[in-house]
């Protein structure tokens, strides 16, 4: 079983990740919190990161959060990537939800 190192260059955190382990799972197992944990299923986009260096395999991810143009920039969900080499990652700013007007309701 190959084991690789993942470095989060935004926070300086470093942890080990096995080749069949998602980066998020490996991070959670060692108790680090340098990537936000959401659904862990590729659906919510909460754990979006950018991979700056290294190769990885991707599982299925929501197209809403990882469209092809994001993938091309290395923007992926940490819960759905599995390392093939050591990885350098960085945090992404959380996307702001599109604004909608709140209608006032009196009780």
């Amino acid at each position, binding site marked *: 079983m190959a084991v690789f190192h993942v470095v989060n260059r935004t926070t300086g955190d470093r942890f080990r990740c096995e080749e069949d382990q998602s980066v998020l799972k490996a991070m959670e197992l060692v108790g680090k919190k340098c990537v936000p944990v959401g659904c862990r299923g590729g659906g919510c986009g909460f754990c979006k990161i950018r991979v700056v260096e290294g190769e990885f395999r991707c599982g299925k*991810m929501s*197209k809403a959060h990882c469209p092809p143009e994001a993938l091309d920039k290395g923007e992926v969900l940490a819960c759905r990537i599995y390392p093939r080499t050591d990885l350098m990652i960085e945090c992404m700013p959380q996307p702001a939800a*599109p*604004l*909608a007007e709140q*209608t006032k*309701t009196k009780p």
Partner: protein
Amino acid sequence: MKKGVMRPGHVQIRVLDIEEAVKHYTDLMGLIETDRDEQGRVYLKAWTEVDKFSVVLVEADEPGCDFMGFKVVDEAALVQLEKDLVAYGLDVEQIPEGELKDCGRRIRFTVPSGHAFELYADKLYTGKWGVTEVNPEAWPRGLSGMKAVRFDHCLFYGPELAAVYDIFVNVLGFHLAEQVLDPEGTRIAQFLTVSMKEHDIAFIHHEEKGKFHHASFFLETWEDVLRAADLISMTDTSIDIGPTRHGLTHGKTIYFFDPSGNRNEVFCGGDYTYPDHKPVTWQAEQLGKAIFYHDRQLNERFLTVLT
């Protein structure tokens, strides 16, 4: 039920991998697969439900909820509700009989929070699973995992709660059972029912339209909720929070995620309501306790992790 809307009937959930999802909803949650169709959709039900299906899984490249459907008492009620929705100013789409297998015609409309709902009067009556109609035993043997009793409700996140309230209460005949009010008196959460349950559907204010928070399934006892928690660990399923109790509804609960990141709840207990009950009100300043009665503080994930 004064307008003829009877109960939650079905929910169509988008998943990234259909077979992984079927395994989750059947092996872990204990739903029963009842059919598949040529679109590749998989139909499931919980054992106490009398109609053929309540959950429809469909493979897509983005998880979430396509629509939730409510069963109405009969065709006459469906015709009247359709007129009322059109008169209110909503676009109503006709879905022909059989588009969902063994389901009668449906009408579909989207409310200002961005969520699609359906009404229908007919679905194939297959009876409770694994027990006879006459002299039934207490429960069927051969159920899997959490042995979910029924599909109970959904919680949606979106804007325009006042307009959504108006449609559900004044057009569809729902009753406000519980609410959360901010200091200005703006309703930021509304729990609506057509039954004695504290919610058949709930909405929490969120700026982005059309978000799906969870689909919820009923269990009988707290022991069943603890056992569900054990199964979540045994299967290394992604947990959200629990077992704990809600302030809102006072239900005892655990939240977790399906393999595509859609949130599920199994819960037991909860308060009851009648149409003469005033809504139970929680203040937004107490939102932590309203949502997680024991921790008394919110976790960010509950408010922001959605599909």
